[in-house]
Each structure stands twice: as structure tokens, then as C-alpha cells.
């Protein structure tokens, strides 16, 4: 499997599909501990990404991610827009103008995305935010890439599985950042919508490479 611009476009297309399919679920998660807009915003944002990709025809994975970053920042709003926008922008910078991504570069780009989210949102692991999906995902990706025998698919699978486990692990947490934090103890017992959408995004990356 080669991670080139075709993969990137497939990934973003699958992201858009996942957001459309899970729109209501994400709205429901957000309704429980936030303000019911996450699914709507992510769906609108990734539909706009698809339109931009069709228009601009990027030539490298990095260019596709940069276009995604700009579109999410300008279309999503809320906290998710700037956070995902920053994540895709940092990942794009880490990829540079490489035509193909190797396992190490992939792990590095995922780490850069996570660092961008942390820098913008100032959340730490355990705060019940998307950081709780991204941190284990990056650790798993780095471990898989270091394995020598690491393949890009192996790195993506490791990241997606860890992100999914990380999202599930937000269920019992009490939120300390974002809108759910206003609920205090009552935020426990619900999945963080941002961690849930992060897991969907990383799972879509596997789908695009399979």
C-alpha cells in the first residue's frame, strides 16, 4: 500500500462519509454533555472539504491536508473547526511536499496533528477531549513505526484502534475542558463527541489504505 495523494483524497472522502453517517450519533453525544452541534458541524465541514478537493485537485498528500485544514477552519466553527483545522495544518506541514508517506513520516505527522490540538485547545490527557483519542493513537503509531517491520497500514491500524479505545475510555471521565466541563461530575458516563469524531477520522484513514 502506498500513501500518496490518491490515498489522502480517499481518506478525506471516507471522513466525509463517516461524518454524514454518524451525524445524528455525534449530535446525540453532544446533546448529552454539550450543545448538540458537533455532528452538524463536522458533516458540514467535511462536505465542504469534498467540494474544495474536487475544485483544487491537490498534487501531494500534504497539499490535500492543507486544503482540508483551511476548509475546516473556515466552515466548521465552534471549537472543533480551529482544533481540527490546526491538526490537519500541522500534519500537512510535517508531510511537506513528499509524494509518498513512509511509516516514520506518517507517525511524525500524526504526532504533529496531536501537538497542534494540544497547543490550540490547551487540554491534557484525561480532560475528556479529543486529546484522549489522539494521545494513545500517536503513541501506538510511533510504536508501530519503530517496529522496523512497520508498514504504513500497520501504523494506521494501530492509530485507529488506539483512538477508538481512547474515545471509549472517555466515558467515565469528568470533563475539565470544553463545554462539557460546565457539567462537572454530570459529564461522567458519556463519551466525548470530539474523541468520537477523532476516532472516526483515524478509522477512515485505515479504510482508505485497505
Amino acid at each position: 500500500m502506498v500513501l500518496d495523494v490518491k490515498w489522502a483524497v480517499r481518506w478525506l472522502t471516507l471522513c466525509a462519509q463517516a461524518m454524514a453517517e454518524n451525524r445524528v450519533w455525534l449530535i446525540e453525544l453532544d446533546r448529552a454533555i454539550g450543545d448538540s452541534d458537533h455532528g452538524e458541524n463536522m458533516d458540514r465541514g467535511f462536505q465542504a472539504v469534498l467540494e474544495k478537493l474536487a475544485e483544487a485537485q491537490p498534487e501531494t498528500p500534504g497539499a490535500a491536508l492543507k486544503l482540508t485544514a483551511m476548509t475546516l477552519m473556515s466552515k466548521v466553527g465552534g471549537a472543533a473547526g480551529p482544533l481540527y483545522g490546526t491538526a490537519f495544518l500541522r500534519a500537512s506541514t510535517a508531510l511537506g511536499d513528499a509524494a509518498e508517506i513512509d511509516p516514520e513520516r506518517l507517525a511524525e505527522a500524526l504526532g504533529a496533528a496531536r501537538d497542534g490540538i494540544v497547543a490550540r485547545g490547551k487540554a491534557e490527557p484525561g480532560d475528556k477531549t479529543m486529546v484522549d483519542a489522539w494521545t494513545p493513537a500517536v503513541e501506538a503509531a510511533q510504536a508501530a513505526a519503530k517496529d522496523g517491520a512497520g508498514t504504513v497500514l500497520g501504523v494506521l491500524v494501530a492509530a485507529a484502534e488506539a483512538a477508538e479505545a481512547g474515545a471509549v475510555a472517555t466515558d467515565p471521565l469528568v470533563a475539565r475542558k470544553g463545554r462539557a466541563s460546565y457539567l462537572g461530575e454530570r459529564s461522567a458516563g458519556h463519551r466525548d463527541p470530539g474523541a468520537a469524531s477523532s476516532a472516526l477520522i483515524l478509522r477512515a484513514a485505515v479504510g482508505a489504505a485497505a
Partner: protein
Amino acid sequence: MKKLINDPRSVVDESVEGFGLAHAGLVTVTADPKYVTRKDAPVAGKVGLVSGGGSGHEPLHAGFVGLGMLDAAVPGAVFTSPTPDQILPATLAVSSGAGVVHIVKNYTGDVLNFETAAELAQAEGVDIRTVLVNDDVAVEDSLYTAGRRGVGGTVLVEKIAGAAAERGDSLDAVAAIGDRVNSNVRTMGVALSACTVPHAGTPSFDLADDEIEIGIGIHGEPGRHKIPMENADGITDRLLDPVLSDLGITGGEKVLLFVNGMGGTPLSELYIVYRRAAQVIAERGAAVERSLVGNYITSLEMQGCSISVLRLDDELTQLWDAPVHTAALRWGV
């Protein structure tokens, strides 16, 4: 849930378009990207004031665009902050060279999007100051949350900072007045019912018939705790006590008392709340010098209210009294 809409996805577009038509003498509406500017913007030599946030809080913010208040308002999707590609052109449209103040309610999304827009505006040579409004005393432990939210006090910040800009204050002076209002105002709200976001279709939280939610924000997010329904005086005391103690109001002080409706509570009930709040403040030996009662920062059709108390000094009172001409507030002109 019945709503007077055509399509959930076009609620904000159509509402803002209607607002522009209804108040064509006061404002100009730009459709894409969406923002509302004062008809005569940019006003030469004047510091520009831009605010914005999710829609669903009407008349906030577009209803406060006009003489003596905001130069521009930037509406996001319902309960979702606007994006930098709206905030930046709105900022540039009202920039006369004297700088622009962003008035931002302290919600993660609003802060991040305005921060980005401010960086971009600075890069275009516009000097930006940001006044962050965080008056909500319901958020008890700001160390473990995203911090106090910006709620009712936002209206007072916009009015008073707007008056300061109108009288010709410098960029730093307008921002300082905004900060001063923010540090002297506290608010707490209650919901008797939840609201329904158009695209979600179901109420934003569940509340039984005999329950109320204390300490709500303005985005239909649940509050700190549910308690059994009480009468108006009881609820008023629950809201006002933390507001007055946090503000440290003592005898002899002058205040502005603002009872705000969340959108679904009749004015008659807001006055019942006002009555009790005024009694309590008088009992503490403070004087209500100015008042505001009505639906100014709402949460769609939510039933409930918030009580804000602003500690007044002579200058703040004078700026409050200064002429204002907007769709939602008008006096002195």
C-alpha cells in the same frame, strides 16, 4: 417540536436576511461570508467594536449593531461560534484606522475563532484588542473547567464599551472600559425548560415537568444541577445570592440590575423576578440605579431567565445613559 422555519439548514441565513430587511436603515447585511455592519461603518476616527457568536441568542449580537454600540456582529450557526473567514472581513469593514475591539464570550469555540481572526487582522495592519466576557458565577471551579462563561453581562459590556468608542475613546481606553464592566458584572441563569436546536430536532437536555436547571449557560447546555421547581421568589434568591456574594456588593453601592429572559418566558414573569431581586438588593443597602428587563440574550425558545448585577460608578452610569440606536436597544436619540 413545531418551529416557524422553512428548512433547518437555512434558519440563520433567512433570519439574518429578514433582520437586514427589517432594519435596513440601521444595518447592512453581508451574506457570504455572513456579517452585519452598522450602516455608516467605518465611522471615521472611531474605534470599531465587533462581537459575534453562535446564533440563537437574538437579539444578541446583530440587534446591538448601531450608533453607540457595536459596529459589526458576526453570527455563527445556531449555538456555534462564527469562523475566522467571517470575523476577519467584518473587522476590516469597520476598521477606520483607530483599531478594533473584539468582544468575545468565554466559550472555547468563540475564543479560538476570534483569536485566529485577530491574528489575521493584525497581519493586515489592524490593531486589535480583545475583551473577554466571563460573568457566569454558575461555573464554580474555573480551574477544572474552560472557565466562567460569557452570558448576560455581554449585553452590558457591548453597550458601555460602545458608548466609550462613540465618545471618541482610544483603542486601549475602550478595551479598558470593556474589561472594567466585565470585572464588575456577575450573572446566573435558570432554565424551566430546555430549547430545541433546529437541526437537532430534540430538546438540548431533559428536564421533568417539576424540575428546573440552575446555572445554565446560553447554548442550551445543561447547568450545574437540577432541583425541584420553586416559586419565583425562591428561584430569584437562588440566582441572586451567588451573584451578589461573588461581586461582594455592600451597603451604599450603586448597581444596574438586568433581568434577562431566555426567549420563552413572558415579560410579566421577568418583572416578578425583577421585583424580588430589587427587594433583596435594597435589603442589602445597595441602590438599583439603572435597570434593564427583557429578552436580550436568549437561548432560542428556552423558558427561564438570568439575573445580572453590574456595580456602577459615575462613568459607567454616564456611558450606560449615552445615546444608543440599535434594533434592540434605543434611547437618547
